[in-house]
């Protein structure tokens, strides 16, 4: 039963004649019983029942006059006068939504409920995997204006009768809509829990109504500066500038688009790079790809398709140059998968996915692939700035050397370098001097012009520039230490000393 009371009658009558639909009337009567909004036939039936007696029927007729087209009206009026009987009221009920005139407040949003069908269609089409979903609705701004206008219209009447209608008690269009939609969507999607607050899966319905967009224009005219904050602040001005009650629209508000968005999933791991001609990210200049593939693409492709995600953001704990290999345990990386249509993966499935990636290319390899939280991403970034890294470089010397000439390098500990931004990256980085430490080094003699240099350095140290000096802009550098021109022929990353992500046992 609808909790409509005697005191609601003046409100109902006023709104009916203004052109409001049944559900909006319920809202203005502050009916907060969700079930009341869900079943349209009952709503009207009960409304009819509430209006008993001849006077009430007159009001109902005028409601019908506003809501139903003329040809239907005659049929209805006769049945209404017999409204005391069940059949009379039922006759009203049978009229379909499509026959009614558009409500002046909700612009048909609470009348036709076509947003629901569209939402369900979109969810099914996307083939998403989810346990719960949350609905979000975006309504055109003019609804605010119209709502306020109706409230003003009713407020006067109500006050005259010694009653009070608090604007805050009026149920919002959005709320009522969600109440109705939640029930219908849950039913259509076979028992999905439609939650009210938070869910990783969000279905957003956006409504627009260009016909009545002009309703808001007076606001811009009245107060151009404060148009944005709260439209409700324009109370007093509203009655002057805007019709009260609002004008009836000719078309119903239609849902513009339904967007389904699943909250991002984060996948982390460590990668090895075995190729000396593979960039980290796609190398494209002027729309032309300069180098085939990239670490990012090789790792992302299988993951993207497994999770059926729309896109991804790849980041890693630092990165290496195109011509540098990453050996050892590999470099930590994390990927944000955007709008993943599938998100549940077991440990076994993740292992399988890891295997797929490793089989797909011999240029890279991943390990410890796992799903992590968004917060975990910061653990990875801290590695970029704080943790140490180890390298092996193949060094060429201009002057011929012997084993004894390079042994002193092994004893150097915690060498502080002043590195000006290397010229090779200066075009995209600020010019600055960075102090970095080389914690320790060890050498392995190869021949009179070559040796291997192992280094353990602070994060952010430019190894290549330490070896060749970068026009003397890195001090001290290997050329100065060995008193000869030196150059770096090859570089490998041996380890990135970050203990994240946690290792996944084989």
């Amino acid at each position, binding site marked *: 039963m609808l909790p409509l009371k005697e005191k609601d009658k003046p409100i109902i009558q006023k709104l009916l004649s203004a052109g409001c639909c049944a559900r909006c009337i319920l809202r203005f009567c502050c009916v907060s019983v969700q079930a009341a909004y869900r079943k349209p036939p009952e709503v009207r039936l009960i409304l009819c029942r509430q209006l008993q007696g001849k006077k009430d029927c007159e009001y109902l007729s005028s409601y019908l006059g506003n809501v139903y087209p003329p040809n239907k009206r005659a049929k209805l009026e006769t049945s209404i006068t017999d409204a005391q009987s069940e059949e009379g009221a039922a006759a009203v009920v049978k009229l379909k939504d499509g026959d009614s005139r558009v409500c002046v407040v909700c612009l048909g949003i609470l009348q036709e409920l076509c947003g629901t069908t569209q939402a369900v269609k979109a969810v099914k089409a996307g083939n998403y995997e989810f346990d719960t979903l949350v609905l979000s609705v975006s309504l055109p701004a003019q609804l605010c204006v119209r709502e306020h206008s109706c409230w003003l219209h009713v407020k006067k009447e109500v006050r005259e009768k010694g009653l009070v209608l608090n604007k805050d008690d009026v149920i919002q269009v959005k709320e009522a809509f969600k109440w109705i939609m939640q029930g219908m969507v849950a039913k259509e999607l076979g028992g999905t829990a439609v939650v009210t607050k938070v869910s990783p899966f969000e279905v957003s319905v956006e409504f627009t109504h260009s016909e009545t967009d002009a309703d808001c224009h007076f606001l811009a005219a009245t107060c151009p500066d404060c148009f944005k904050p709260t439209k409700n602040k324009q109370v007093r001005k509203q009655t002057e500038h805007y019709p009260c009650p609002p004008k009836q629209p000719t078309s119903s508000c239609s849902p513009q688009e339904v967007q389904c968005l699943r909250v991002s999933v984060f996948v982390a791991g460590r990668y090895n790079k075995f190729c000396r001609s593979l960039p980290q990210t796609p190398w494209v200049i002027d729309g032309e790809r300069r180098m085939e593939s990239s670490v990012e693409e090789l790792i992302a492709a299988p993951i993207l398709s497994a999770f059926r995600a729309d896109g991804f953001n790849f980041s890693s704990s630092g990165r290496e140059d195109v011509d540098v290999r990453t050996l050892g345990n590999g470099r930590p990386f994390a990927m944000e998968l955007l709008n993943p249509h599938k998100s549940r993966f077991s440990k076994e499935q993740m292992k399988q996915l890891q295997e797929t990636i490793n089989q797909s290319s011999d240029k890279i390899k991943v390990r410890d692939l796992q799903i992590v939280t968004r917060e975990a991403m910061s653990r990875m970034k801290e590695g970029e700035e704080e943790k140490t890294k180890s390298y092996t470089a193949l060094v060429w010397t201009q002057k011929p050397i012997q084993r004894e000439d390079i042994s002193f390098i092994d004893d150097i500990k915690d060498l502080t370098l002043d590195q000006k931004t290397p*010229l*090779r990256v*200066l075009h995209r980085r600020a010019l600055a001097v960075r102090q970095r430490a080389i914690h320790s080094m060890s050498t392995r003699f*190869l021949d009179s012009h070559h040796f291997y240099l192992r280094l353990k350095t602070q994060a952010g140290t430019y190894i290549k520039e330490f070896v060749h000096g970068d*026009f003397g802009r890195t001090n001290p550098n290997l050329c100065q230490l060995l008193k000869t021109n030196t150059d770096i022929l090859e570089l490998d990353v041996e380890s990135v000393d970050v203990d994240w992500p946690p290792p996944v046992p084989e």
Partner: protein
Amino acid sequence: MESVEHEDTKANAPSVIDRYYTRWYRADMKGKPCEDHCILQHSNRICVITLAETHPILQNGRTIKCINYQISNGCSRLKNKVSGKSKRGGQFLTDFAPLCRITCTDETEYTIYSCIRGRLLEVNENILETPNLLLEKPSTEGYIAVILPKFEESKSITENLLNRDEFENIISKRSSAQSQPS
């Protein structure tokens, strides 16, 4: 790591400059004979201004008395300061903007010029402390300045410059001119 083939003791492995920079030249800068400049252009469009090996400063065993980045009353290249990724604040140079004046111990004076249009990023302060760097390693540690051309101009700035072959042509013409009987 893979092992590397043995190279000649006097190996000429391609240097950092060979791998990443293109050598451009400006000969007889401002009409002064043999005052040749060498512009090293990195693949990322940044240019390093250096003395070409034929420059008078590097000939006849000259030594340097002083290097002055104060090129006029109101302008010192040392005061150049760039900030941020877009290098705002750097002095904008045209082809003939002076970078510094070098006086040698034999009282000869030379002005080194920008040679290209662009924003001055830095001048080499190491050569103020150690002028010998300029004499011993004019192409690397003895560089004069680093200039960033405008993105739109990064290709066009080389239109007025000579490539290595053209420069060597000019040098050989000079020697043959000298060896001709007067």
